[in-house]
């Protein structure tokens, strides 16, 4: 269904000028300079062109490979002007320029356009030694160039006569080749010409910059039934062009930012079958979470985002807020690079309404009291709806890449409402053990996994009625740590740094010792604070004492321990602010 959905999408995008889809036989390229010629073919001057604006040129891209393959009426300076690359042997530039010239001169009579003839006169007269006369060309480097005639608005390749000729040769070229006919597996049409090579897909993070294919067969083990190359997967020429163009438009076209987001090493694209407001803001919502609201510039979009976010976080239904057809089909495709090929990490199709409902469920699972509800200094506030990449970042050391399959698995869990990947939970616990940091994102992730995968009932805020021993121990640990901090402000390493891992895994061996030191710390506290603290500790101890300290906590219990710790700690610091007690320790920096 993947290629079929993309094929269908092509029809929609082709009608929308915003996407600027290239026609068959043409492609959009980043052109960095133009050679302005006089009508007699002499060079007036080279001018720079904004490379950010894509220019429609003839041909479906620069041919791959190291052979001599000149393009038509556009190319880089090696072909266009015979510039000798420094790292290549002598004659490299000259050979390519001659091939470029020969290709054009051969068809001059056939085309019969004055503009094209001017280009031919230029090519005949040009000597690559003159390159140094034009400093602009030195700067243009490896960019592509095109031709323009003085006084004309369009480029030479836009000349109607040239275009008409180009279109004619395109169709003629197809018919003459020894075509393989068969049933197309995208459209189901019988006896269509089967594509031998499929379009390259550009814009997947980590893949080769020239593009990678979804469909390709480069080793014998991939081939079967005596078929070679893409004849192994019969796709009609036209269908192949359409799906490739549509996918390229989503990944690297002018509207790509609406359709593409990156999660770990996976590039995701999504689209809806019909144009739909959710499509415009979905990337921001998933990619930036609540931060998207701060980042949005356009007021209309901001409004859209706010409503969508509200629907997701408050449980309201988006369909009620807006007259969007909740039934519009919604597609999500995750691609990851593997050298010259792309592998599909996930493909998901559903409806807009369902997808938003899944997002809401995800948010409900994740929901936990925020550590920083307001920005503190340079630190951002914790987002109410955190983006997925932020969760993945918590599974590894700062700067490392998350495990390759985790991003896709997490995305799948969020979008389909299936259990979260177990690897995510284990990785977060591992990071907590290693750096003893329990922040909002980690606590929220642990909670989400425990709630969805193991059906634990965990509250958003501190739950004093929860009698789960692991939860109570986590709370106890937070109280002990806070007491130590209050007694000895400015300490470098607290009991969390020394004992967290042991306390959460083997409580019986650690807590008795911590309780002894607690007595010393408590002695340093003053008046009401001392009484309150002791009362809190006694409440927790009373609930634990029935069973004594457990010898070991398993992985699930360790997660609950972390949540108990997080809840209690948050509560300790919040309560203090409310009562306006004298500041006895540094502000919370968890």
């Amino acid at each position, binding site marked *: *269904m*993947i*290629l*079929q959905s993309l094929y269908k999408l092509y029809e929609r995008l082709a009608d929308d000028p915003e996407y600027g889809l290239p026609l068959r036989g043409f492609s959009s390229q980043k052109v960095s300079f133009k050679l302005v010629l006089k009508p007699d073919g002499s060079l007036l001057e080279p001018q720079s062109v904004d490379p950010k604006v894509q220019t429609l040129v003839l041909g479906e891209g620069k041919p791959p490979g190291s052979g001599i393959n000149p393009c038509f009426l556009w190319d880089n300076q090696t072909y266009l002007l015979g510039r000798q690359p420094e790292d290549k042997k002598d004659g490299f530039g000259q050979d390519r320029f001659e091939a470029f010239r020969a290709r054009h001169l051969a068809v001059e009579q056939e085309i019969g356009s004055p503009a094209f003839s001017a280009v031919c006169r230029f090519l005949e007269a040009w000597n690559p030694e003159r390159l140094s006369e034009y400093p602009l060309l030195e700067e243009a480097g490896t960019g592509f160039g095109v031709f323009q005639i003085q006084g004309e608005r369009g480029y030479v390749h836009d000349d109607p006569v040239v275009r008409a000729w180009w279109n004619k040769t395109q169709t003629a070229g197809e018919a003459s080749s020894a075509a393989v006919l*068969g*049933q197309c*597996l*995208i*459209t*189901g049409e019988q006896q269509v010409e089967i594509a031998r090579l499929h379009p390259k897909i550009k814009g997947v993070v980590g893949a080769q910059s020239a593009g990678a294919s*979804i*469909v*390709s*067969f480069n*080793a*014998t*083990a*991939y081939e079967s*039934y*005596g*078929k070679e190359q893409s004849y*192994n*997967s*019969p*796709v009609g020429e036209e269908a192949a062009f359409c799906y490739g163009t549509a996918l390229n438009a989503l990944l690297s076209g002018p509207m790509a930012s609406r359709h593409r987001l990156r999660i770990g090493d996976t590039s995701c694209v999504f689209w809806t079958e019909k144009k739909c407001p959710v499509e415009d803001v979905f990337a921001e919502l998933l990619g930036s979470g609540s931060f998207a609201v701060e980042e949005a510039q356009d007021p209309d979009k901001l409004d859209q985002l706010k409503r969508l976010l509200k629907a997701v976080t408050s449980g309201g239904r988006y369909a009620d807020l807006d007259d969007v057809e909740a039934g519009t089909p919604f597609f999500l495709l995750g691609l*990851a690079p*593997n050298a010259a*090929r*792309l*592998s*599909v*990490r*996930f*493909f998901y199709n559903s409806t807009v309404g369902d997808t938003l409902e899944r997002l809401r469920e995800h948010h409900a699972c994740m929901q936990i009291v925020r550590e920083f509800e307001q920005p503190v200094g340079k630190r951002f506030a914790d987002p109410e709806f955190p983006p997925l990449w932020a969760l993945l970042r918590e599974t590894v050391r700062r700067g490392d890449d998350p495990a390759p*399959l985790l991003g*896709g*698995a997490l995305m*799948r869990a969020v979008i*389909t409402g*299936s259990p979260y990947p177990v690897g995510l939970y284990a990785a977060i616990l591992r990071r907590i053990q290693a750096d003893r940091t329990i922040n909002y994102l980690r606590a929220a992730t642990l909670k989400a996994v425990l709630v969805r995968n193991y059906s634990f009932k965990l509250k958003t805020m501190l739950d004093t009625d929860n009698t789960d021993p692991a939860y109570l121990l986590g709370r106890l640990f937070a109280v002990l740590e806070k007491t130590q901090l209050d007694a000895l402000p400015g300490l470098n390493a607290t009991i969390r740094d020394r004992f967290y891992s042991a306390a959460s895994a083997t409580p019986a061996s650690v807590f008795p010792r911590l309780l002894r030191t607690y007595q010393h710390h408590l002695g340093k506290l003053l008046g009401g604070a001392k009484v309150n603290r002791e009362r809190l500790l006694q409440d927790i101890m009373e609930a634990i004492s029935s069973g004594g300290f457990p010898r070991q906590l398993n992985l699930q219990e360790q997660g609950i321990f972390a949540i108990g710790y997080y809840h209690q700690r948050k509560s300790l610091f919040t309560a203090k602010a409310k009562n306006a007690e004298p500041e006895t320790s540094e502000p919370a920096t968890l």
Partner: protein
Amino acid sequence: MNFGITLKISGNYALFSRPEMKVERVSYDVITPSAARGVLEAIYWKPQIRWVIDEITVLKPVRFTNIRRNEVASKISVKGAAGVNAAMKNPEIVPHMAVDENRQQRASMVLKDVAYVIRAHVVVLDQRLEKGSDPVAENEAAGKHLEMFKRRARSGQVFHQPYFGCREFPVDFELIEDEAALPTPDSALLGEKDLGYMLHDIEFSQDRATKKVKSTTPHFFRAQMSDGVIRVPALPFPLKR
């Protein structure tokens, strides 16, 4: 006349590679008719018959997961001095491939926890009960094959372990003889669903004299799932030789 059988098949994983994504493998959403035929042939097959799948009922919701496996990049050659053809003539020759030199890690998107009910019938290509005997009535010949299939399926006999697309994913099967005992599809599958074009089967055209395969042509059909049931159309090529 219906010379049919009903078989419930299930397994933990399945991978019905789409031809367009069979390198970095991606599975079809449901079992293809040709994969279902492979399951039946693993239980019972003779050159005299051909299994034809009529209907596939999907019992469990379609769920995917990703795995990575080590596969190889090349095939053992058929031709040549150390190829399969030479080895079939001369038992001294052992065709081989150095796996460690050809190893490749490839990603696969596989189906998880699958169960299907397949209904199929048998087409008898050769109506003789034994070589040299006279042909019998079609229903008599088909009855023989069907009974053999059923006897084998009841006792769990197989020629080789049937699998869901790849050998790693074995099939558990159970013959359903009582229509009342038919399992019902998961409620998530209710309604109409378009599964797109799916491989129907591959047509082999053989040279009559030399028996060599002249060409192989894949055929695709539009799979429509209605309340979990996919009706498989008739094959678009003749079965009988």
